[in-house]
């Protein structure tokens, strides 16, 4: 049930349109910024080491239409996670997109081989969850099938979800091609750990007016791999079951280009997470096999018949097998592939003074069923030799008023950094529609 709760949070909440800490792009002195700008070459000849786990922890989430706490909230009386579609369905136009992400580094290293060449390496664990909730589904859950929807074909075509848990081993190289141009790239070997992906969905439901006959038409399919890695008897087991090795292989590429227009202004362009993972370990491809599933009421003859197999209407008695049988779902173990959530990121930086700069970032990210785009304006100031702080304003399709914070602090060989695109969301992520927080501790040797 805990797993269901989490899936519900992910599917129904509307945390969506995460932008993964745009402010991180601007913290060029943090070597993990090269994950977003592969062309970045940090200053100095130190060997920068990202310690396991603590060096780069990132959580992000966004919802396109409403905040999670309006739709989903814990019930202190019953310990149930309450879903409240009536509170939000009117805020949704055609569908509500959501996205959640998390990552941390097992290890990262970065070293400038000379002033024109940076070599970096990292092992990063990533989890991405995205999906869409159609307005029709929310409207049905809120107003029911016997209200304004009676007699209509209620389509659920835009209902989809993707779960992606993988590990990347990246080797990056950034070089200064000329005084004005830096080019960088990273090649990533990917290990898929677990995956869930809706493949197709054309389901629609119709309720007839006289006696409320229900008919479900269409089909749907989805694929999974290694679902045992995230499910357990008592709930979810992400991270507690992190495998050392996986046979789901994939490759990915990050590319970056920086152009220095003048002493004060530079632009950069990044193409990130261009890659795929081929899933073949413990895969299951599920496909519905019914034309029309109709229910117009119980058959009294079956009720009276002693040997009939009358469905028990107690909702608590339904289980996975009975649902699968009802929907005639068939499964096959063939392999499948998924794409990484590809991003295009553009940024500029204008040096206001020796110690302050103004930056802008535009990022567009492709999830399974939608693009998420956001822009950010940031101001960064070097307060002292060891402390740099800044503020940001972000806007996107999921919100136009997001105040962020970023900062680095050097304490000898130790570097601490924190980036948040929405300060409030760092503490109350359920009460906003957009949040991203990244923090870590690095060593400089």
């Amino acid at each position, binding site marked *: *049930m*805990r797993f*269901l*709760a989490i899936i*519900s*949070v992910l599917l129904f909440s509307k945390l969506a349109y995460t932008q993964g800490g745009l402010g991180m792009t601007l913290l060029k002195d943090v070597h993990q910024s090269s994950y977003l700008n592969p062309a970045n070459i940090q200053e100095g000849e130190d060997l920068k080491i990202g310690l396991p786990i603590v060096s780069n*922890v990132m*959580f992000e989430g966004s919802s396109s239409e409403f905040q*999670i706490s309006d739709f*989903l*909230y*814990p*019930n202190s009386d*019953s*310990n*149930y*996670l*309450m*879903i*409240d*579609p*009536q509170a939000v369905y009117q805020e949704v136009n055609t569908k509500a997109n959501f996205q959640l992400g998390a990552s941390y580094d097992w290890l990262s290293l970065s070293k400038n081989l000379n002033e024109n060449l940076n070599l970096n390496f990292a092992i990063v664990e990533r989890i991405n969850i995205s999906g869409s909730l159609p307005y029709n589904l929310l409207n049905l*859950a*809120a*107003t*029911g*099938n*016997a*209200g304004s929807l*009676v007699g209509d074909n209620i389509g659920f075509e835009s209902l989809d979800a993707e779960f992606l848990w993988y590990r990347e081993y990246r080797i990056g190289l950034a070089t200064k091609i000329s005084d004005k141009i830096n080019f960088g790239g990273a090649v990533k070997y990917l290990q898929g750990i677990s995956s869930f992906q809706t493949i197709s969905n054309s389901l629609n439901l119709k309720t007839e007016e*006289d*006696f*409320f*006959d*229900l008919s479900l038409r269409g089909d749907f399919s989805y694929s999974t791999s290694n679902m045992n890695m995230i499910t357990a008897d008592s709930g*979810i087991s992400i991270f507690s079951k992190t495998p050392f090795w996986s046979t789901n292989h994939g490759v990915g590429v990050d590319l970056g280009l920086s152009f220095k227009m003048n002493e004060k202004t530079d632009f950069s362009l990044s193409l990130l997470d261009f890659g795929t993972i081929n899933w073949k370990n413990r895969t299951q491809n599920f496909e519905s096999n019914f034309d029309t599933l109709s229910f*117009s*009421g*119980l*058959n*009294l*003859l079956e009720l*009276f018949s*002693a040997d009939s197999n009358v469905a028990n*209407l107690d909702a608590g008695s339904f289980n996975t097998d009975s649902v699968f049988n009802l929907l005639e779902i068939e499964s096959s173990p063939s392999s499948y592939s998924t794409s990484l959530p590809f991003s295009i990121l553009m940024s500029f930086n204008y040096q206001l003074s020796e110690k302050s700069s103004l930056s802008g970032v535009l990022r567009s990210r492709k999830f399974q069923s939608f693009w998420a785009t956001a822009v950010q304006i940031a101001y960064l100031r070097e307060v002292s030799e*060891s*402390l740099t702080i800044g503020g940001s304003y972000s806007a996107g399709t999921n919100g136009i008023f997001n105040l962020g914070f970023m900062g680095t*602090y050097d*304490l000898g060989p*130790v570097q*601490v950094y*924190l980036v948040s695109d929405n300060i409030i969301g*760092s*503490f*109350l*992520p*359920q009460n906003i529609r957009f949040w991203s*927080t990244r*923090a870590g*501790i690095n060593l400089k040797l």
Partner: protein
Amino acid sequence: MKPLKPILSILCLSLLFSCVRDYLNTDGPRLSNWPSNLGIPLIDTKLSASELVKTVDTEDLLEFDENGLIVLKYTGELASIEANAIANFPDTSAAFDVPGFVVVQSPISLTRPFGGSIPEGMKIEHMSLRSGEAFLKIESRFSEPGKVNVRIPALTSSGTAFDEEVDFEVGTSQNPSIHERVVDLNGYEFDFTLGTPAFNQFDFEIGLTMDNQLPGFLDSIKLEFGYRNLEFIFIDGDFGPQLVSLDQDSIYLDLFSKLISGDINFTDARLDIDIESSFGFPVDVEFTQLEVLELGSNQPIVWQASGPSGSFPNPFTILNPDVSQVGQTVNTNLFMDRRNSNIDQLVGTKPKWLFHQIRGIANADSNTAKDFMMDSSFFKVNTTMILPLTGEVNSIVLRDTIDFDLPFDEEASEIALRIGADNGFPIEGALKVVFYDELFQDSLILIDEKVFDAARTNAEGKAVSSSSNLSDPVEVVLSESQSKQILNLNKAVVDFSLTTKQGQEVSIFDTDEMRLRMGVKLGFE
């Protein structure tokens, strides 16, 4: 303050997790409110007469006749009797003494009659034996040894007469020598016609032979002959009048036990009587009791063997196999209906018990032909109550009590029940549903009205076109207070009432069918 900054950063992350922790530590998702308008299809059932018969007829009581008319059949056995109940032969023996002074020479011969134990009034001429034993027992007080021979010309096996010899030794009055010979009678046949009279008894010849000297004057010898465990295969003769059946029994008509009220008038009821007999003699049968006790009544309706078009014969003679049909069964078929009896009145109104008594007398008319029976012969009176579903139905009510538990625990602002049918049966239906609490104190009537009309019929009462209100179903709407009240009720008493149009006789055929629909709309504010 500077060293505190990284600590604060970590603290921030901790706060973040604490905020979402409640979201993850739950028992699962649940809708906070029911959808504001929920429509649920409840019942969609196509009831054809043939399917209905298969479903409710767990005892195979319902059939279709050649015209497709549904016929309710109750089959029972009114009386039966087997051969050994009429004719059986208890163990029998006869003994006599031969004094020594009679034996004046050796050998000597004696002839004695032997009469078996035969049922009263029966004159048996021939008997073939399946099993049994004959025995010859000797108690000798002769002072000399010898032998005894018994020969029975009337008892033969494959044409050879029974002929047995037994040696005896010297005995005294205080210490007789005892000898016994037992003979298996399997395969033997009696021919009692060789004796006088020519039935039920036979002569047996005794020969006494001394080995050496004659016995003493005061010596004696006791001879005992008899049979035991006698079972026959076949007997014939003149069996005379015999009472073969006087059973009293009843048939329980279970289908009507669930009727709460109302009645059904079957207009074409019939009782088929099928009598099987393999006895070689006629039997006169008489119904001495035939009556029905209705549900809830203690006044039986008594059968009368006369109707508007004749009378049912009472008593009547059943057929029997003749000598050329030994071992065969001959059937006698009779029936009673409303033309020759008042049987329709007996079964016309929700009967529950049918009581009957029948008396059968063999050779009641002093039959002169030779009677016979085999050990497997039997006599059986079977009855089949045939009730074609033709007649008039007057508000019969089928009732059931259902425990229910509403799947929602909040007050519905509206509960609207829709009921409709496309009815091809020539009977209209009404529904009454009353909800009660556990103690049957608080109640709420959900519906009490006609929910579908009868199909239109032809002159013979057969449905020819259905009557439908599916496009305009009966709708029952509970008020807000009633919707609130129903949350506290958990039992439903459902009365389903059926009736035909007044004075109209209708018939139910296998082609009759209906579609019953029900749906409910729940509104939540």
